[in-house]
C-alpha cells in the first residue's frame, strides 16, 4: 500500500458544521485530513451527512461553520469568481449522473471546460482544439466514442456514468469528488465504473474522495476508509483496519453482517 504523505492536494477539514435547520446539525464538527493521493472512501449509514460533507468541499452546499483548507485557501469562505475558480479544479461525479439530458454526449463532456471558456464562446460551442481532442480521447477511454453525437437521455445508466466521469476528468481537476457514483448501478457495472474512475484518476495523479455504500467495493478500490455515523467521523484508517467491529461502530447493530 502506498504511504500516505501530505502534499499540495491534501484537504484539511476543521470543525465543519452544517445545519439545514437551525439547531439541527447534520455535520457535527468534522475534523479530517483527506490525503492528496489515492482513493479515499467515505462510508456510513444513509442520512449521516456523507453527501453533505462532500458537497461542502465544492460548495454546492454552504457549510454553517468550519474551515476546508485546500491549497492554502479556505474553500468555505470563497464566493463569486474565486469560488468558481476553485470549483473548476474540483471534479464531481454524481449518484444520478446529472448529465444535461438534452445535450449530446460531447456537449456534456465539454461542459467540464465551462470554467475555462468564456460564456460567449461557450454559447457558440467554440472550445479550444486541445479541449476537443481531449474530449474525444476521454470518450475513447470510457468506451463511448460511438456515442459522441447522441443525446445523453438515450444512454443507459452505466453509459451515463461514464460520461459523468469523462466530464469530471475533462476539468483536469486537482481533486475528484464522487457522490455515490455506483448506487444507481448493477453490481457488475458498479465495478466497471469504479475501475474506470480509478484508472483515469490514478494515471493523472488525481486524488479521489468517494461516498460509497458498498463496503466490499470500497475495500477493493480505496486506500483509505473514513467511517461516519450521526454526523461525526467514527473511523479513519486503512481497508485492512476496517474490521467487523469497526463496521459495527459505523453502521450499528451486527445482524446485517452475516
Amino acid at each position, binding site marked *: 500500500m502506498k504511504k500516505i504523505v501530505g502534499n499540495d492536494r491534501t484537504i484539511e477539514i476543521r470543525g465543519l458544521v452544517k445545519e439545514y435547520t437551525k439547531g439541527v446539525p447534520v455535520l457535527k464538527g468534522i475534523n479530517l485530513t483527506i490525503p492528496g493521493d489515492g482513493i479515499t472512501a467515505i462510508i456510513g449509514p444513509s442520512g449521516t451527512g456523507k453527501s453533505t460533507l462532500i458537497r461542502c468541499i465544492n460548495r454546492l452546499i454552504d457549510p454553517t461553520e468550519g474551515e476546508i483548507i485546500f491549497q492554502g485557501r479556505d474553500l468555505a469562505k470563497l464566493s463569486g469568481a474565486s469560488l468558481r475558480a476553485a470549483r473548476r479544479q474540483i471534479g464531481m461525479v454524481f449518484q444520478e449522473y*446529472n448529465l444535461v439530458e438534452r445535450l449530446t454526449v460531447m456537449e456534456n463532456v465539454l461542459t467540464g471546460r465551462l470554467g475555462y471558456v468564456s460564456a460567449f464562446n461557450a454559447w457558440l460551442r467554440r472550445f479550444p482544439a486541445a479541449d476537443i481532442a481531449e474530449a474525444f480521447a476521454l470518450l475513447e477511454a470510457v468506451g463511448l466514442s460511438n456515442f459522441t453525437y447522441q443525446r445523453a437521455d438515450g444512454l443507459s445508466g452505466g453509459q451515463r456514468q461514464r460520461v459523468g466521469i469523462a466530464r469530471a476528468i475533462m476539468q483536469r481537476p486537482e481533486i475528484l469528488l464522487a457522490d455515490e457514483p455506483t448506487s444507481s448501478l448493477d453490481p457488475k457495472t458498479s465495478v466497471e465504473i469504479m475501475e474506470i474512475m480509478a484508472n483515469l484518476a490514478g494515471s493523472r495523479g488525481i486524488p479521489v474522495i468517494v461516498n460509497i455504500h458498498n463496503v466490499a467495493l470500497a475495500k477493493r478500490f480505496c486506500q483509505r476508509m473514513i467511517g461516519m455515523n450521526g454526523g461525526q467521523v467514527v473511523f479513519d484508517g486503512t481497508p485492512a483496519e476496517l474490521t467487523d467491529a469497526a463496521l459495527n461502530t459505523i453502521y450499528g447493530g451486527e445482524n446485517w453482517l452475516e
Partner: protein
Amino acid sequence: MVAKIGSNEFCMNGLINNTNPSSRKPFQANWPLRLGGLALLIYVAWASAQLDITWARFSSGLTQAAKFFDRLFPPNFAAEKAEMIVAGLTESIQIAVVATALGIALALPIGILAARNLMPAWVAWPARALIAVCRSFHEVVVAIIFVKAVGFGAVAGVGALVVGAIGFIAKLFAEAIEEISPKQVEAVRASGAGFFSVLAYGVLPQVMSRFLGFASYQFDANLRASTMIGIVGAGGIGVSLMSAFQRFDYDFVCAILISIILLVVVAEVISGFARSLFSGNLARLNYFRRGQFDHQTSHQSLAKNDASINVNAAS
C-alpha cells in the same frame, strides 16, 4: 356475521363481505359546489332578464340575420377587391411575423429574469409584475392605447402584439424554467461555470423545446390577432374589414372573412409542422441532417441506437 353471509348475494363467489353494501357511500356530497351551482343558475336567469335576453328579442334578430347573411353571399373577389385583400393580408402577416420575432426576443430575457429559481427575489418580482401588466389587457385594448400613442398603422399593431407576446411567452417560459431539474444545473455549476454558461448548458437545453412551442403558438395567435387589431386602426386586413362593414359592403366582408379563415388554417398547418420538428427535441435536427430518421425517442432500446450509430460510423 355468519347469519348475514347467508343473506348476502355478493358472497356467492366465496368472498366474505361483512358490511351491508348500502350502508357506505363511496362519494361525499359537495354542498358548497351544489349551492354555488344553484346561485350561478339564479344569477344567469336574473342577468338575462336585466339584459333583455328573451326569445322574442332573439327571433326578431333572426330576420335581420337572414337579410345580413343573404347579402354576404356570394363573396366579392373582384380584381380590385382581391388586391385590397392581398395587400391587407400581407400587412397582417408582416405585423404578425415582426411582432412575434420582437416578442420572442423580449420574452426570452424577461422570462429568465422572472424565474424565481434563477433570480433573486428583487429581480424576479419586478419582472413578474411587468409580465402581469402585459397580461392584464386584451390585444385590442392595448392596440387602442398604441393607436392613440403612436398613431394609426402597423407600428401600433406590432406594439400591441409584442406586449401580448411578452405576457404569454415570458410567463410560460418562466414557469418552464422553474420546473427544470436542478440536478443538471448543479452539475454544470460544479464545473465552475459562470452564470451565462450555466444558462446555456444547464438551463436552456432543458426548456428550449418548450420555448419554441410557446413561440410557435404565439405566432398562431398573433396571426389571428393581427387580422383583428386593424378594426381599431392598428393596420392589417382588419382596417379593410372595418371599413367594408361601415360601407355595408357585405359581400366584400364575406370575401375578407373567407381569406382570413384560409390564412389561419394554412398558418396552423405550417406551425403545427414546425412544432413537430422541434417537439421535445432540438438535437433531432442534427439527426435529420445525418439522415438518422430511425432515431425516434429517447428511451427506445439501446440496441436500436447502437444500430443507427454503426450505420453512421460506416457511412
